[in-house]
């Protein structure tokens, strides 16, 4: 901790020393960006090549990836552990349903749901912003339960039993599936780019400072409340987008599953296993999640039990997750500063191998 707070000083000191450079992203970021575009292009082409069973599976994959990235942004960069993100997920679905019941095309309902969930996020943050740690975690859970209890009061939305969402375009199911897939892919890409941009911005730097040392960050003028508010609202909007995609891809909406704490469990497990506090972690974690789910598909909920046990073990004994184990070697989307001592040109210095990248100011 003291090492981290010390680093900015060394960066500014380095600015005075001749021959020392400070860069934000290494050249690999450009290659990573090109790689990402290539991956998205291949994924976008998939509906022409594979059965819709595969694309449906990928839709679920992307929904979890969005959720995981949002939870990671919240917990990994502000230290706020929410176990109630299903509140926004559920409302994302219900906003689309409400729109559809009033004749709004679900694909148009999606952005409306995102805005609605961002607004809901504002309200919830206003309620909970003074709480920390376990109080915050349980309060978010209570909020999710309140959302559920409110929704089931409305028989027009299906009450406690559920409602079919009308209004999906009346076209060949194959094309519909493809549209849903492309929409999901686009939303996922936008979400990940947003996360990347947020973390690269000044806000990202502030967030990391707050996470590492809230009091310290306050004392150097970081507006902690504002930074946390922004992230909370972004996470609410993102989870709302995931919920909207969920109801579009599976248009029978039941309040129990929509507001289930299981969603929180899925995002948390994926992030913990992949590596909390990194952009890459949720991606890796979601891949592991789906691989295990497919592999143990015939054994009921065992895959989930196994995932839970892995997540618990990782949280205790390898808190940087799978990505932490490999990230010392390479960074796909670096958002920190890199300090290049004079005369050194290649790669991170040896110190970086010793654990937390000693020379990187994240």
């Amino acid at each position, binding site marked *: *901790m*003291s*090492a981290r707070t*010390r680093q900015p000083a060394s960066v500014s000191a380095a600015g005075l020393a001749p021959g020392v450079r400070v860069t934000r992203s290494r050249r690999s970021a450009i290659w990573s960006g090109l790689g990402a575009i290539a991956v998205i292009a291949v994924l976008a082409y998939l509906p022409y090549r594979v059965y819709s069973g595969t694309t449906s599976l990928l839709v679920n994959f992307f929904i979890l990836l969005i959720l995981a990235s949002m939870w990671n942004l919240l917990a990994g960069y502000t230290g706020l552990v929410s176990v109630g993100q299903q509140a926004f997920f559920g409302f994302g679905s219900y906003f689309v349903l409400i729109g559809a019941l009033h004749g709004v095309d679900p694909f148009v309902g999606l952005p409306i749901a995102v805005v609605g969930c961002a607004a809901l996020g504002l309200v919830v943050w206003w309620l909970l912003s003074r709480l920390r740690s376990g109080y915050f975690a349980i309060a978010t859970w209570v909020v999710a339960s309140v959302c559920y209890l409110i929704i089931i009061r409305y028989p027009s939305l299906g009450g406690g039993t559920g409602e079919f969402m009308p209004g999906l375009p009346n076209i060949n199911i194959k094309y519909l599936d493809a549209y849903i897939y492309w929409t999901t892919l686009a939303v996922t890409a936008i979400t990940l780019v947003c996360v990347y941009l947020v973390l690269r911005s000044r806000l990202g730097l502030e967030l990391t400072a707050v996470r590492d040392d809230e009091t310290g960050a306050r004392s150097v003028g970081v507006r902690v409340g504002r930074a946390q508010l922004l992230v909370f609202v972004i996470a609410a909007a993102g989870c709302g987008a995931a919920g909207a995609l969920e109801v579009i891809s599976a248009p029978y909406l039941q309040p129990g599953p929509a507001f289930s704490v299981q969603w929180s469990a899925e995002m948390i497990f994926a992030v913990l296993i992949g590596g909390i506090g990194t952009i890459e972690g949720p991606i890796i974690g979601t891949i592991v999640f789906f691989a295990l789910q497919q592999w143990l598909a015939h054994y009921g909920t065992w895959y989930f039990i196994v995932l839970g046990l892995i997540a618990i073990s990782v949280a205790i004994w390898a808190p940087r997750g799978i990505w932490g184990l490999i990230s010392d070697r390479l960074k796909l989307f670096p958002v920190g500063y890199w300090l290049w001592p004079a005369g050194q040109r290649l790669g991170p210095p040896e110190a970086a191998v010793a654990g937390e990248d000693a020379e990187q100011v994240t």
Partner: protein
Amino acid sequence: MTGGPLLEVRDLTVHHGQLRALYEVSLSVGVGETYAMIGANGAGKSTLLRAIAGLDRPTSGSITLDGVDVTKLRPERRVASGIVLVPEGRRLFSSLTVAENLKVGASYARKGPWTISRVYELFDWMRDRRGQRADQLSGGEQQAVAIGRALVANPRLLLLDELSLGLAPAVVRRIYGILPELLATGVTVLLVEQDVSQALAVAARVHCLLEGRTTLEGEPAGLTPASIEAAYFGLAGPAGLPQERP
């Protein structure tokens, strides 16, 4: 007894994260001796005592008590072998009463002369107020309870960290007034004191730390005020150190 010193600290180095708080500090304290550590704020005195008590893990070096290496022992096991620390800032159990604080101190006590009622005799006001919560006591009273809590464990080596912290001079004098009575029961005392004259008055030997390094060690009689001042402030060292008088 081996006949050697009771406490032997050899080349002790301690880090707080990246910060190196002690640089290969060595000292030895004989049985029944009173030994004082002096030094400015942040010199590493508390770190030394905490390392001897087992709260701070040394990076290198060793600590032996009566010939037995205790370097790897957990703090609670060191209490059983006779090392007890009265920590800086007293650290009483604030929601417990005076009597309960003493009882906790006696929970894992070694056999020996000190009992709770003997502590009540040492501080005559304490018995009447044993039912009072510790956080309602004055600073001097809290310090007395903290000493009592350590004594009932029957230490062989008692570590006292800045007894005078935040106390009025008269109270400090009263607290130090009990030292002879402790020594009479065979306790060895290693104390930290920022007030150099106080340390010189009570200790058989003093040891000065400056930024984690030993700058002076010896019997008070053999030390000149100038040598102590130089060791305390490091006047021979880098300029710009605080020039406040002890």
